[in-house]
């Protein structure tokens, strides 16, 4: 251990001090003198390094020359190393420190900043050196890494660091280094060493798993590391095992059989373990990897010799994996909890119609906005009530209008055919050469309805068959073909069926621009992620793209190629390179999307570098746009990096670049409500170019998705959106942005968010495709509808063993209710319109609750009733008899409200409820009879363990799918809220609101 240099404060002499005398001694002939001088220099070098730096050449000469004894050389190295350290030349510093040896550079016990910094540097070099496959363009990889034998010495240092980590039991540090250095032997060694404490091992393995998906860039090594981690997970005793992580690991490796085995094993054990199996199944379905899920399903044993209990569980598992139970649950949630405000679209329509004729662009966009607003909620009331307005859609607008039905009814697979019947091509009818817009749109709608992989597999397959038939019989009509091809692509997403692919290819070879474009995209969807390594099909598509004269077909094919390289990472590099170099800008455009999809969510630096280069150097605006938008895809797991990266591009002179930068920011930061992001988008809203304003409006609404009314920018932006539509001199393109923005901001009844990742961090293909296709609206407006695929319900649903909602399960949200409340609904201005929509409110104060509960009790209701009522407090959908009581309660609560002080610090969420991305952090399941089977599960579908299973619980609710067969739910009677002694007309806008739609509607239906 070296003596620490004396800090300057302890100097008692004159402050002015100089190392000059010592430095001049270095040139003396006497070697002992030089040695003594050096030793003294070492004591002062930390304060006087600026003077010493002038003598660096001399020091290095001493350190590396032959004439001085070893000891002198070591001190000289130590001095020089410290000077380099202060000069922030860490590489040289490290080189010399290694030369100085342990006496002056002790990595094990010395924790000074000097040593720590150099060790970091050593690890950096170590990882770079051992990762020889990476591009050697980094500054660390100088030529002389190997030359001066630094490599071996660095290895020694890192080895010591590993030892230090072992002795300090900081396994995750060691594992991180090993993973970054791609040293599989070390990984094995670390996992072996930490085995003596099972808890630590589990934690280390979990860390390793997440590091593999986030840090490890190289695909081959990731697989290798995951294999090792998987083996270790499997070897853990069952009592300590983290099954969720194991499933994730096996999923990443594509080991469906071992997942099947594990599920079967868990089911056999029964009890909580079978609950866990169900939970794992839900998580698996949530990843959206259709291919893997079906492989797991087929691997499940079809045992007949098992007990009935296990059999029942097996059936549930199949229902979840194959039967589309998760989809039904989502649908039920979106339908029931929808907070879609009909006035948004009604007002939009009104302001569009104010000036007489509505431009077809804006008309069509308003229908898109309506589809977004009600995406997945099956609420098509606006369309039914405004058939006149709807009829104005012609040609392709008609196509989109029909396709939008698919967006609204997404996941409603059981009744898809009934719903779309009126629009589908007539059975055996003559094929018209022109027209067929509604028919084409309906076919695409079918695809959209069956697009999400969590719906029933059997129905998906039959729909694909139906769509293929339509594709064949209507081959003469390119509009129908277009819709059918996209429909086939969506419903057969990732099925990798060669027959379907060939059928689509036939459509392509008819060389019809419109149909061919769709066929190209659909081919990619069918073969999603199946195109790596000189695939024959890719070659064929590329050849045809160069052959045809239709730009639309080229674009379709290049997007198809991009889809075929989904998540292939390095395997796609060949085709990426080829597309990048192509002379045709449309193919280059496809190349950008190939990067986006191949590297989606990896944050791969090489890919980002490529994209940024194109973003500023390509001659074609479209290619630049694609490159910038692609950044959002590659970086969606670290979204904060996107605004940082494109900040400069946002002020580009090129409006296309500005537009794309807005979109990239919007896509990456969707649903975050991030104030900084909004601040950088804000000036873009006033941009001089109309389509940049459009992009900014769309992007801002993406960021503001699910934002509560209390959000700082909410009111301003909302009024801007509505204002722009009515403005007389605003450009149609900007208006288009405002209309779409209105749809996106309150999409899916305010219960969905744009998200490319599943809850487990897997990339969801449907979401990625949805957003990618939405970006194509630049060329083809009907593509807007596909955004619906990317909406993911932000749901928290607790299920019991029978897969029914448990009402007793409550989640506490530790924040002000207003931070996550649904925004209040708009209020109709005109008096004569029936006042259906008033501000509704959920009593939030503990006081009010207590009062309500007490009241109920007095009225003879039991506990469970109270819970239920509480949830329904102040909802207007109650029956006649209830209304009076409700009214009383309202006034009761209102009185309390007047008295009450500040907002409460926490509130409770019922089951099921919306739980936004940012809300998950502050939520905690409330301890009670039920608790999550998987500790730490907070959002999504949560399986619950019952602590007292013997006790009856009649407060459960089956998952019910909304049905169109029945009449629309009866509208509640007009209801005016009258506080005691207040003026009758006063709208209760002051009350605190957590609005929910009537839950009773489903009950009503069920009753029927």
């Amino acid at each position, binding site marked *: 251990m070296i003596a620490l240099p004396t800090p300057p404060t302890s*100097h008692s002499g004159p402050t002015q*001090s*100089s190392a000059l*005398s010592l430095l001049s*001694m270095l040139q*003396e*002939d006497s070697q002992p*003198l030089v040695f003594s001088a050096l030793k003294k220099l070492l004591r002062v070098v930390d304060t006087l390094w600026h003077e010493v730096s002038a003598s660096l050449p001399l020091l290095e000469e001493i350190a590396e020359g032959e004439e001085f004894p070893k000891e002198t050389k070591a001190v000289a190295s130590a001095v020089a190393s410290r000077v380099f350290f202060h000069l922030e030349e860490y590489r040289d510093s490290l080189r010399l420190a290694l030369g100085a040896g342990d006496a002056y550079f002790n990595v094990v016990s010395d924790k000074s900043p000097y040593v720590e910094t150099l060790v970091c540097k050593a690890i950096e070099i170590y990882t770079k050196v051992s990762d020889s496959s990476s591009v050697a363009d980094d500054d660390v990889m100088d030529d002389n890494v190997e030359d001066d034998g630094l490599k071996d010495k660095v290895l020694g240092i890192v080895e010591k660091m590993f030892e230090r980590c072992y002795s300090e039991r900081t396994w995750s540090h060691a594992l991180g280094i090993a993973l970054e250095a791609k040293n599989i032997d070390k990984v094995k060694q670390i996992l072996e060493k930490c085995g003596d404490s099972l808890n630590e091992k589990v934690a280390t393995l979990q860390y390793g798993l997440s590091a593999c998906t986030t840090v490890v860039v190289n695909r081959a090594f990731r697989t290798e590391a995951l294999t090792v981690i998987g083996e270790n997970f499997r070897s853990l005793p069952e009592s300590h095992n983290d099954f969720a992580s194991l499933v994730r690991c096996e999923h990443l490796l594509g080991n469906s059989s071992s997942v099947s085995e594990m599920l079967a094993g868990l089911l056999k054990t029964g009890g909580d373990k079978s609950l866990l199996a169900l939970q794992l199944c839900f998580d698996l379905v949530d990843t959206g990897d259709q291919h893997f899920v079906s492989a797991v399903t087929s691997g499940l044993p079809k045992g007949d010799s098992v007990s009935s209990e296990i059999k029942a569980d097996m059936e549930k598992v199949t229902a979840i994996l194959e039967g589309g139970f998760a989809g039904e649950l989502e649908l039920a949630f979106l339908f029931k909890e929808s907070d879609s405000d009909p006035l948004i679209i009604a007002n939009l329509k009104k302001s569009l119609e104010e000036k007489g004729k509505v431009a077809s662009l804006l008309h069509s966009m308003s229908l898109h906005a309506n589809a977004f607003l009600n995406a997945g909620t099956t609420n098509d009331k606006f369309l039914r009530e405004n058939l006149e307005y709807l009829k104005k859609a012609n040609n392709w607008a008609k196509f989109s209008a029909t396709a939008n039905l698919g967006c609204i009814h997404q996941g409603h697979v059981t009744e898809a055919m009934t719903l779309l019947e009126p629009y589908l091509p007539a059975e055996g009818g003559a094929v018209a050469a022109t027209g067929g817009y509604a028919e084409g749109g309906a076919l695409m709608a079918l695809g959209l309805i069956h697009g999400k992989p969590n719906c029933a597999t059997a129905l998906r397959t039959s729909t694909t068959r139906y769509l293929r038939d339509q594709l064949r019989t209507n081959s003469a009509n390119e509009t129908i073909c277009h819709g059918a091809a996209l429909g086939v692509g969506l419903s057969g997403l990732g099925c990798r069926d060669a027959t379907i692919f060939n059928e689509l290819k036939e459509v392509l070879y008819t060389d019809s621009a419109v149909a061919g474009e769709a066929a190209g995209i659909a081919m990619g969807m069918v073969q999603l992620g199946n195109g790596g390594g000189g695939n024959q099909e890719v070659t064929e598509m590329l050849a045809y793209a160069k052959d045809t004269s239709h730009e639309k077909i080229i674009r379709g094919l290049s997007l198809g190629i991009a889809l075929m390289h989904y998540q292939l990472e390095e395997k796609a590099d060949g085709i990426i390179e080829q597309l990048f170099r192509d002379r045709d800008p449309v193919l280059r455009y496809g190349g950008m999307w190939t990067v986006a999809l191949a590297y989606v969510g990896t944050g791969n630096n090489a890919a980002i570098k490529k994209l940024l280069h194109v973003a500023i150097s390509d001659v074609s605006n479209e290619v630049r746009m694609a490159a910038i938008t692609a950044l959002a895809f590659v970086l969606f797991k670290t979204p904060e990096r996107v605004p940082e990266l494109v900040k400069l591009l946002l002020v580009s002179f090129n409006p296309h670049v500005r537009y794309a930068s807005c979109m990239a920011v919007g896509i990456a930061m969707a649903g975050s409500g991030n104030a900084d992001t909004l601040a950088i988008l804000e000036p873009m809203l006033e941009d001089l170019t109309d389509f940049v304003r459009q992009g900014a409006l769309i992007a801002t609404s993406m960021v503001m998705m699910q934002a509560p009314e209390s959000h700082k920018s909410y009111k301003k932006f909302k009024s801007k959106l509505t204002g722009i539509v009515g403005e007389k001199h605003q450009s149609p393109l900007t208006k288009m942005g405002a209309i779409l923005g209105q749809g996106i901001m309150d999409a899916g009844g305010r219960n969905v968010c744009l998200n490319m990742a599943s809850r487990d961090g897997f990339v969801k293909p449907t979401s990625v495709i949805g957003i990618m296709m939405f970006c194509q609206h630049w060329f083809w407006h009907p593509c807007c509808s596909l955004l619906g695929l990317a909406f993911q319900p932000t749901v928290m649903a607790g299920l019991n063993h029978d897969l029914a909602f448990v009402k007793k399960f409550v989640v506490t949200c530790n924040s002000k209710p207003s931070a996550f409340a649904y925004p209040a609904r708009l209020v109709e201005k005109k008096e004569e319109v029936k006042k259906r929509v008033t501000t509704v409110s959920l009593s939030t104060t503990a006081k009010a609750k207590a009062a309500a509960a007490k009241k109920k009790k007095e009225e003879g209701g039991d506990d469970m009733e109270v819970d239920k009522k509480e949830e329904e407090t102040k909802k207007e959908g109650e029956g006649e008899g209830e209304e009076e009581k409700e009214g009383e309660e309202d006034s009761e609560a209102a009185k309390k409200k007047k008295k009450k002080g500040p907002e409460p610090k926490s509130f409770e969420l019922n089951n099921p409820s919306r739980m936004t991305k940012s809300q998950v952090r502050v939520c905690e399941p409330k301890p009670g009879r039920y608790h999550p089977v998987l500790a730490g599960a907070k959002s999504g579908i949560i399986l619950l363990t019952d602590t007292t299973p013997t006790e009856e619980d009649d407060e459960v609710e089956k998952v019910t799918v909304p049905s169109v067969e029945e009449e629309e739910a009866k509208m509640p009677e007009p209801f005016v809220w009258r506080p005691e002694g207040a003026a009758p007309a006063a709208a209760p806008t002051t009350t605190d609101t957590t609005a929910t739609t009537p839950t009773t509607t489903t009950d009503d239906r069920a009753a029927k």
Partner: protein
Amino acid sequence: MSISEASALLKKLSSEVSSFSASASTTLASLKLILVDFDSLPPLCLPTPDSKEEQRIACEALELGCLLAVKNGDGEAFEGNTNQLFPIYSSCLSVPQSANRKKVQGLYLMFLLVENRLADFHSVLQTYTAEEIGDERINFAVLLERELMVGSYDKFATSSTSLPDPLYQFFMTSLLSTVRDNVADALEVSYESMDLADAQRMLMFQPNETSAFESFVKQSREDWMVVDNEIKFQPVVASNRAEDIPSMKLISQSLSFATEIERIV
């Protein structure tokens, strides 16, 4: 112990220097080995019980070292010693004035003049007090510098005859050759040819130093030709012409700038 050892060595050194003994350098080296371990000296300047004595010994030893180096005609060693000595002067203000101090200070200025390090010369001069500058040994160097700067080389020749200390001779000799070189450079460009006798006078050779003059012309001015008692200077090499402008480089640079600007987004 070491301090007594050091003072003994200092005494020995002092006598050796004055007697110009060959063993003086070794004595100095061993003394320095002791000095380097004194924490009271810069850069540490820590207060030790014997700090005053230590500083005094260090000063005197190094001053002697300086004088020794001059006597040996070793400029490098002289600079090394002053580098070790001057930080003590500036950091340890309580050190008593020694007999040799002003001499070393003056010699150091001379040394800087010879090295033509005028910036250093003036910054060192700033650190001297008015009383020090008034001293004859230091003032000599100051005046000398002034004369050289104005270019009154003839005055310089006269002052070289009245040295304040014989040790200054070493530096004066080198200065004279520096001055001579300057004059020769000026002659080259000012005249096409010149009479030998005139040249000898201009280059500050005494009338009796003809042989020295001739060897100077032969050795350090190879391009001068002596023809008929006259020196012919070579014509001055023409300065850079238009073609020496790196036009290609500039053009390619401008072009690359233009492309970069195109790319700026």
